[in-house]
């Protein structure tokens, strides 16, 4: 599946929920599916410090594709991190660098991507793109 197909799938899944409680329960549940960052990488270097919730992120490069593992100290953020990781993992640096992440807004969690509410998710997305761009630059050398 392409990055956008994965996002559309998530949006479709979320249309099933009738109320916010169910939606949040599902997000928190998704957090449990997150490929957890290996303890050795859960360092300050890999810590993305938002104002409120913290996210640790690690990227592996295999066969021309990037694979992410992560963790967060807040459950709702962790659920969203899990979705973003699922959407972007296994894609090429170019695809990740060019990706437009629109599903967070579409499922009604726009506040997590607002720069005024500086938090882990937004900073994590930026960091994922930085990884992708770094690998792109390397490939061009």
């Amino acid at each position: 599946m392409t990055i956008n197909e994965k996002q559309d799938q998530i949006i479709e899944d979320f249309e099933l929920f009738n109320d916010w409680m169910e939606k949040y329960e599902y997000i928190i549940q998704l957090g449990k599916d997150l490929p957890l960052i290996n303890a050795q990488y859960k360092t300050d270097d890999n810590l993305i410090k938002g104002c409120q919730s913290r996210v640790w992120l690690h990227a592996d490069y295999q066969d021309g594709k990037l694979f992410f593992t992560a963790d967060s100290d807040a459950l709702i953020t962790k659920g969203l991190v899990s979705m973003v990781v699922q959407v972007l993992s296994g894609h090429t640096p170019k695809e990740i660098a060019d990706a437009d992440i629109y599903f967070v807004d579409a499922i009604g969690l726009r506040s997590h991507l607002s720069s005024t509410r500086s938090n882990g998710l937004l900073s994590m997305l930026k960091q994922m793109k930085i990884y992708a761009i770094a690998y792109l630059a390397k490939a061009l050398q």
Partner: protein
Amino acid sequence: MFNDNDIITKAAKLDIEKIRSDFPILQTLVYGQPLVYLDNAATTQKPKSVLKVMDEYYKEYNSNVHRGVHYLSQKATDAFEVARRNVQAYINAKHEHEVIFTKGTTESINLVASSFGKRFVKAGDSIIISAMEHHSNIVPWQLMCEERGATLKVIPINQKGELLMDEFEQLLDETVKLVAVTFVSNTLGTVNPVKEIIDKAHAQNIPVLVDAAQAIQHIGIDVQYLDVDFLAFSGHKMYGPTAVGVLYGKEKWLNEMPPYQGGGEMIKTVSFKKSTYNVLPFKFEAGTPNVTEVIGLSVAIDYINATGLDYIREREQQLIHYAIDGLKSIAELRLIGEAKERAASISFLVGNTHPFDVGEILDKQAIAVRTGHHCTEPLMDIFKIPGTVRASFAFYNTEEEVDKLVKGVKKAVTLLS
């Protein structure tokens, strides 16, 4: 037939309905539910009278103050200076020129740090603050200390969130040039013994700045009784507009301090060789002031006076105690800050839940609280926590809203565990 209690309860209920109708925003629906606004320590809501006067100003007498010969400018100047006298009366300052309008507590503190620092602080000197200060009463002093080679000393606190007064006394040595301390902690709700702090500092001829951003709306402040040297507060936390604040300073200090910013209004004469400065308070009010907001603040003070600070304090104390009792009924909830003397903020954490998660689930129930470190990062480090959930109350809140908060937190805990 009615008994006395019924009548009192009914009267109280009428009062609160009347009060709430003065604040249009309190009728707002959030996600289809009535707003429960418990973020009053961040900013309070504004009564209709404040909104009205700000609208009238722009419609009827918008004009630059202090320099116009024309009718509108006179009218605006009169309103502006009436506001100054209103603030003077509210804090019982001796002189109206001891009231400087700023854009908020932060600017008031920066003004003192900069101007007082230039005049009175040299290498080897020190400034005392406390462990529970807001960043705005830490960083200006750090900047000034770095610039002048001075050091910053910190009054420690106990686990309840109260200042250790013995330790404070030990910090008071001949290097100390100023003590800057908050009246009420924005995070813990602790009310500090500022009179005692001022008396102890004065015994060694050390002046004191009190950050009253979280006190001015809850506690009656008499600067002459306190004998405080500087008092800083913001309009928007006392039912007034944003972008206006006050620095009260004793005349003797303000006269000795150099200007903070240069520009129009603050000068007497200007030449390319040398300028001379205006008298107080204008020396510290460079440029066109925030006239609308100053007038709005004045009407906010009228509103507080008409409601009565005693009534406000009593209502808020009832709400806090009711809220503490309710929150304590939640298993695994722990209060951060349990000072004996406290004002309208309550910080807490529940079990292992992250404050950000709890805040978000409360938001979905139309309950507005604040989460995070509340601009008191060093304080969070002392308690070894990433942040707290903070509910902060105003006299327009109700017991019913507290019940919703308690229920909302319980729901969050269920969802998050």
